[in-house]
C-alpha cells in the first residue's frame, strides 16, 4: 500500500515538473525570443483598446410626445490599420481597400513603407458595413478594430449648449464646453473593456459598485430641448442673421412656469462633430457668457415695479415733454417728440423713455434697485451651463444720480446675459415669480433609476395682479401697435415688446450707427405656455427691432401654437357635433 502511494506521488511530481518545464520553456519564448513583438502587440492593444471601448453617457432631447432623441451619443464603427511587415502585395491591398473607402495613395505608400512599425492607422470611423466587408476579406497585414466615438446628430443646432468632448494638454478626453462640460462627472465613464473576464470584473468592480459615489451618479442627461422647435428656432434665427448681416443672432424659448428651456440657439454656430475645423470663437455660449444692454424690453419690468409698489396704476397719466434733463444729462424719446399728457399704456405702446423715467422717479432709488435685484439682475441665474457670467447693474448699485436709474428703467446703462434677461422677464409670465432657467430635466442613472432634478422654488417679485395689469398692456401693444396691429392673432392673446438699444463703445459713450435689437413675448398671455426672447446684434441697414424681429417672433409664435395645439383663448367655442 505504502509502495503504491509512493509510486503515485512520484508520477504526480513528475507530471508537475513536466508541466513546469513546459511553462518555463513557453515563458522563455514569449519573453526572450518573441518578447519585442509581443511587447509591441500589447502596446497596440492598449492604444486601440482605449479608443475602442470609449464610453460616455448620452445627452437626450425630448420631443413633445415625451420620446427622447440623442443630442450627443456614441457612434460605432471600425478603425482600419496595417502591419506593413505582413503585407504581401501592397499594390493589391491598396486597390482592394480603395474599393471600400477613400484612401490617398501617397498616404498608404508612406504607411506601407514603415516596415518597423507594426501598426499604421489608415482610416478611422469606418462604417459598420465597410468594416465588416474588409474584415471578411481577411487580408494579411490589414487590421480591423472596433471603434467608438462621440457623435452629435443635431450638428450645429444648440451646439454651444450641448458642447463637445476633446483632449486637453494632458491628453485627457473630457467635456470642454456646454452640457458636456457642466455634467462631465455624470457623463464620464471609467474605461471598461469590451472583452472582459466576467468573474474577474465582477470581483474587481464589486468595491466600486458598492462604494464609488461617482459610479452611482453617472448616467444619461435628459434635457427639455425639443428638437423640432429647436430646428424651427434655428431656421428663423438664420434667416434674420443672413437678411440683416448681423454680428450675432440668438433666441431662447422657455416654459415660464418651470424654467425649462425648450430651445435655445445662437448664430453663427458650429458643428461639434468636426470642431477642429471650426472657428473656436463660436464655441462659447453667448446666452450665458455675454452681457448686453437690452433696451426697451426692460420697460415692462419698470412698469410692473411701479404698479406693484403702488406708485402708479394703469390709469395714471404723466406729461410727456419729449425730453427730460437729469444730472445735466438729457434723456429723449426715440424720436425726441413730446406726447403731452398720456396714460401708462402709451409708455409701452410708443416705447417712451421719458415715461419709464417718470416711473423710476416715482419709485425712488431703493425700491427700483430692490425690484431689479429680486429679478436676478446683476447675478448669475444658476442655469446648468458652464462659464456663466452675471449681468452688471453697477450703475444703480453705486451711483446716487437719478440719471442712472432713469436710463436703467429703459434698459440702458445696465447689461444682462440673454438667460438673465429671460429669467427676469419670465416673472411677467409667471404671476410675478422668477424661476431658475435650466436645460436638464432629469438624469437617467446607469442603475435604471431616473432622478428628476430640482431647480428650487419660484421666488415672488410682483403680485399676480400687478403682472396681469402689465400683461394687459403688452397684449394691447401686440393688438394695436406692433406693425400697426397687423400681426395680432385674433384667436390668441399674445403679450410682447420690442427693444432697440444703442451699443456702448469701448472708449465710452455709444456708437451712433450700431444697435442691439431684442424682442420678447409670451402666450397665451393670461396662461402662458412659452416665453420667447430673440435678439440680433448689429443688424445692418435697419434701425428698429420692430423691423427685424416682429415677424420672426410671430412666425415662432404661430408655429408653437400649431405644433403644440395650444387652444385659442379669445374665441367662442361651438358645441361639438354628436
Amino acid at each position, binding site marked *: 500500500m505504502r509502495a503504491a502511494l509512493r509510486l503515485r506521488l512520484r508520477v504526480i511530481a513528475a507530471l508537475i515538473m513536466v508541466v513546469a518545464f513546459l511553462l518555463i520553456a513557453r515563458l522563455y519564448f514569449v519573453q526572450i525570443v518573441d518578447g519585442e513583438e509581443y511587447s509591441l502587440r500589447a502596446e497596440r492593444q492598449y492604444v486601440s483598446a482605449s479608443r475602442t471601448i470609449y464610453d460616455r453617457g448620452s445627452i437626450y432631447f425630448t420631443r413633445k410626445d415625451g420620446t427622447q432623441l440623442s443630442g450627443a*451619443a456614441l*457612434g*460605432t464603427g471600425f478603425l482600419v490599420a496595417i502591419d506593413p511587415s505582413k503585407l504581401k502585395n501592397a499594390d493589391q491591398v491598396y486597390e482592394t481597400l480603395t474599393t471600400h473607402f477613400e484612401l490617398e495613395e501617397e498616404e498608404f505608400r508612406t504607411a506601407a513603407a514603415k516596415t518597423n512599425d507594426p501598426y499604421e492607422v489608415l482610416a478611422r470611423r469606418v462604417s459598420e458595413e465597410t468594416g465588416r466587408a474588409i474584415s471578411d476579406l481577411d487580408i494579411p497585414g490589414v487590421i480591423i478594430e472596433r471603434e467608438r466615438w462621440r*457623435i452629435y446628430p*443635431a450638428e450645429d443646432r444648440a451646439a454651444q449648449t450641448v458642447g463637445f468632448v476633446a483632449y486637453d494638454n494632458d491628453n485627457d478626453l473630457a467635456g470642454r464646453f456646454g452640457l458636456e462640460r457642466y455634467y462631465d462627472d455624470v457623463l464620464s465613464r471609467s474605461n471598461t473593456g*469590451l472583452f472582459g473576464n466576467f*468573474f474577474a470584473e465582477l470581483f474587481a468592480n464589486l468595491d466600486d459598485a458598492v462604494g464609488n459615489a461617482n459610479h452611482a451618479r453617472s448616467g444619461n442627461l435628459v434635457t427639455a430641448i425639443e428638437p423640432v422647435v429647436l430646428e424651427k428656432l434655428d431656421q428663423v434665427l438664420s434667416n434674420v442673421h443672413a437678411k440683416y448681416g448681423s454680428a450675432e443672432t440668438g433666441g431662447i424659448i422657455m416654459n415660464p412656469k418651470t424654467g425649462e428651456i425648450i430651445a435655445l440657439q445662437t448664430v453663427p454656430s458650429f458643428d461639434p462633430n468636426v470642431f477642429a475645423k471650426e472657428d473656436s470663437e463660436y464655441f462659447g455660449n453667448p446666452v450665458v457668457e455675454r452681457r448686453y444692454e437690452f433696451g426697451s424690453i426692460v420697460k415692462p419690468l419698470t412698469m410692473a415695479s411701479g404698479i406693484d409698489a403702488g406708485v402708479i396704476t394703469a390709469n395714471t397719466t404723466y406729461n410727456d415733454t419729449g425730453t427730460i434733463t437729469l444730472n445735466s444729462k438729457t434723456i429723449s424719446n426715440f424720436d425726441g417728440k413730446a406726447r403731452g399728457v398720456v396714460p401708462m399704456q402709451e409708455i409701452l405702446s410708443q416705447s417712451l423713455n421719458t415715461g419709464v423715467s417718470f416711473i423710476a422717479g416715482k419709485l425712488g432709488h431703493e425700491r427700483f434697485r430692490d425690484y431689479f435685484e429680486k429679478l436676478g439682475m446683476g447675478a448669475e441665474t444658476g442655469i446648468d451651463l458652464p462659464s456663466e457670467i452675471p449681468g452688471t447693474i453697477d450703475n444703480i448699485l453705486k451711483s446716487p444720480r437719478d440719471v442712472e436709474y432713469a436710463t436703467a428703467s429703459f434698459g440702458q446703462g445696465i447689461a444682462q446675459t440673454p438667460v438673465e434677461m429671460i429669467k427676469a422677464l419670465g416673472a411677467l409670465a409667471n404671476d410675478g415669480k422668477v424661476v431658475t432657467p435650466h436645460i436638464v430635466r432629469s438624469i437617467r442613472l446607469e442603475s435604471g433609476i431616473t432622478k428628476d432634478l430640482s431647480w428650487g422654488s419660484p421666488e415672488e417679485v410682483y403680485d399676480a395682479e400687478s403682472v396681469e395689469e402689465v400683461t394687459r398692456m403688452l397684449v394691447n401693444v401686440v393688438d394695436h401697435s406692433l406693425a400697426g396691429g397687423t400681426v395680432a392673432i385674433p384667436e390668441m392673446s399674445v403679450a410682447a415688446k420690442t427693444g432697440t438699444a444703442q451699443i456702448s463703445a469701448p472708449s465710452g459713450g455709444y456708437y451712433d450707427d450700431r444697435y442691439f435689437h431684442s424682442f420678447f413675448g409670451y402666450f397665451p398671455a393670461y396662461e402662458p405656455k412659452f416665453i420667447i426672447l430673440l435678439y440680433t446684434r448689429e443688424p445692418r441697414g435697419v434701425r428698429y427691432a420692430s423691423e427685424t424681429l416682429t415677424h420672426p417672433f410671430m412666425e415662432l409664435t404661430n408655429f408653437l401654437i400649431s405644433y403644440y395645439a395650444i387652444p385659442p383663448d379669445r374665441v367662442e367655442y*361651438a358645441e*361639438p357635433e354628436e
Partner: protein
Amino acid sequence: MSSRAIPVLGCSCLVAIALYLLGVAATVFFATWQTGLARSIQEMEGSVISLETEYYESVERYSSIDPVARGFTSPRSVEYVSSTGVSSLSRADQ
C-alpha cells in the same frame, strides 16, 4: 494517515478539479456572452444614431418647406369646438 483518507482525498481532488473546470467553462461562457451582448448593444446604438441623424435631416427638410410656395392657403374660416373626453372602451349596447 488512515487507508480510507487516500480515496477520500482523491475524490475530493477530482471534485475540486471538476469544479475548477466548470468554473473556467462558466467564465468563458459568460465572458463570451457578455462580450456578445456588449457588442450587439453598441451596434444597436450605432444604428439608432444613424436613424436619429436621418430624423434630424428630415425635420430640417420639412421645416424649410414654404407651404405658400407649394400652393397651400390659409383657411377662409375656422370654427373651434371644445374637445370631449372619449373613452377608449365602450359597451356594445351604448
